[in-house]
């Protein structure tokens, strides 16, 4: 069991100088958060609330201005394969086919060609793309690309999956299917996950916990145990879950919380 911990993490972007320059911008303030490997923590918040910044801190692309981020007690000092990122616009490599994209983290580790291709093929099958290994990235649909992106992250055998609105660019039907897919693949992988989304429904369906990030500066203002994902994994129909009174109540509650932030801003 691994644990990813944010302890009192703040982030300030330095002032931009020159024309159109701004003062120092405090984007995240006093973030405390723990994510265990049996969890999927969904972070919701309006656009510009600092969700991507939070994830980039966990990934090690950014360093906190103050506070610490640790994985199993060891401070995060930069990006690493223990925290694999899945990007909103996939960030797949167009010079590689689907199989070699998935095999990429294995190549970095020095796994021999035949073995990494075999392992990539196994992952392709796991994400339901057994026949797509030879395809070029631009020949894949948005949903397929995200599957490849997720498979590539899994190939790194990370302790945590960091997902920055991975389903944000998909159409509604594909998105519903991908939510189910994501839920199962995450459960199978045994990795912890941080999922950023701006869909309250998605956060509730997928998250073991849902945390709300309020903007200006970004703070975690609410946290609820969702637990619908366990029901879905145990076979409950998503439609039934969404129709249940408790789901509706939580949805309304979260909507209110996010809305409250807006009013506060307007006041």
């Amino acid at each position, binding site marked *: 069991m691994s644990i990813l911990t944010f302890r009192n993490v703040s982030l300030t972007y330095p002032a931009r100088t020159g024309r159109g320059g701004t003062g120092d911008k405090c984007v995240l303030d006093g973030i405390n958060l723990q994510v265990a490997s049996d969890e999927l923590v969904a972070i919701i918040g309006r656009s510009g609330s600092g969700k991507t910044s939070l994830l980039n801190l966990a*990934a*090690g*692309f950014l360093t906190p201005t103050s506070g610490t981020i640790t994985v199993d007690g060891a401070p995060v000092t*930069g*990006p*690493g*394969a223990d*925290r*694999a*990122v899945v*990007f909103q*616009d996939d*960030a797949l*490599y*167009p*010079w590689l086919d689907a199989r070699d994209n998935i095999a*990429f*983290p294995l*190549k*970095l*580790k020095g796994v021999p060609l035949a073995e990494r291709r075999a392992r990539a093929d196994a992952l392709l099958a796991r994400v339901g793309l057994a026949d797509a290994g030879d395809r*070029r*990235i*631009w020949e894949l649909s948005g949903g397929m690309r995200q599957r490849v992106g997720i498979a*590539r*992250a899994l*190939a*790194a055998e990370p302790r945590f999956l*960091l997902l920055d609105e991975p389903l944000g660019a998909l159409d509604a039907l594909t998105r519903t299917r991908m939510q189910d897919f994501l839920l199962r693949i995450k459960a199978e992988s045994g990795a912890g996950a941080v999922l950023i989304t701006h869909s309250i429904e998605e956060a509730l369906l997928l998250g073991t916990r849902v945390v709300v990030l309020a903007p200006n500066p970004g703070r975690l203002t609410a946290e609820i145990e969702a637990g619908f994902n366990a029901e879905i994994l145990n076979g409950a129909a998503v439609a039934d879950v969404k129709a249940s009174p408790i789901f509706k109540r939580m949805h309304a509650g979260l909507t209110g919380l996010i809305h409250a932030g807006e009013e506060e801003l307007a006041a």
Partner: protein
Amino acid sequence: MILSTELDVLPIDAKDTEPARATRPIPTALISTLTVGVILGLWGLASAYALVSPVFLPSPRQVVIALYNLVVKGFVDATLAEHVGASLTRIFGALIASIIIGIPAGLAIGTSRVGRGILDPIVEFLRPLPPLAYLPLVIIWVGIGEASKITVIALSMLPSIILSTSAGVRAVSKEHINAARSLGAGKRQVLTEVVLPSAVPSILTGIRIALGAGWTTLVAAELVAATSGIGFMIQSAAQFLVTDIVISGIIVIALIAIFLEYIARLIERRLVPWASHR
């Protein structure tokens, strides 16, 4: 690369805006063919009616015969194939040299501030210089042999290879780099597995431009200082006023240049089919 996609896109746009019952426009290829035909016709007429002395303008027939003789018998101790071979050897020798030097130099400019500081002034000095301006100096330094010609050609190719490499490196997607780092790539691996591959289309474009520049330099260098090669052949023919050989040589130079460009585009398309899908 950019040019070819523009050309691909234009006709589609044109089709969309075309009125449904418009008469079909004359194909551009036909217009070009006609132009070439008219020029050849005027040339034929001019020499048939002896409007110009054959010393200045031999007839098309004479040029064809001269070309045939060049292929079969040759001129100044070598056949056409041997002259062309000598020229091509020089240009590909220079190309290899400039790739070996230019790509690492471009990487250094694109990835490191120090590298840019050191190499930028050198490239910017070299780039606008006409190669023939430094040919005499190169001859003083490395002698009149093959080395001086290859050096000059390579120098004329270097700037476009260096600049296209550094431009390609600088255009690499930040997200592609971050993805690699979060999947476990070290600094070196980011360079070899992400930065370099994504710069390949730009590098290939640079090589194509370099080939054009190099071919121009080569012919000019051979006109000045050589004992073989297509440029030397023309220069020798001109000294004896063998105008049909001169014209044949010019035609061969143009054909080879077109052929090199064609091969380069073919390689681009085969090697980086993804470049147009980014």
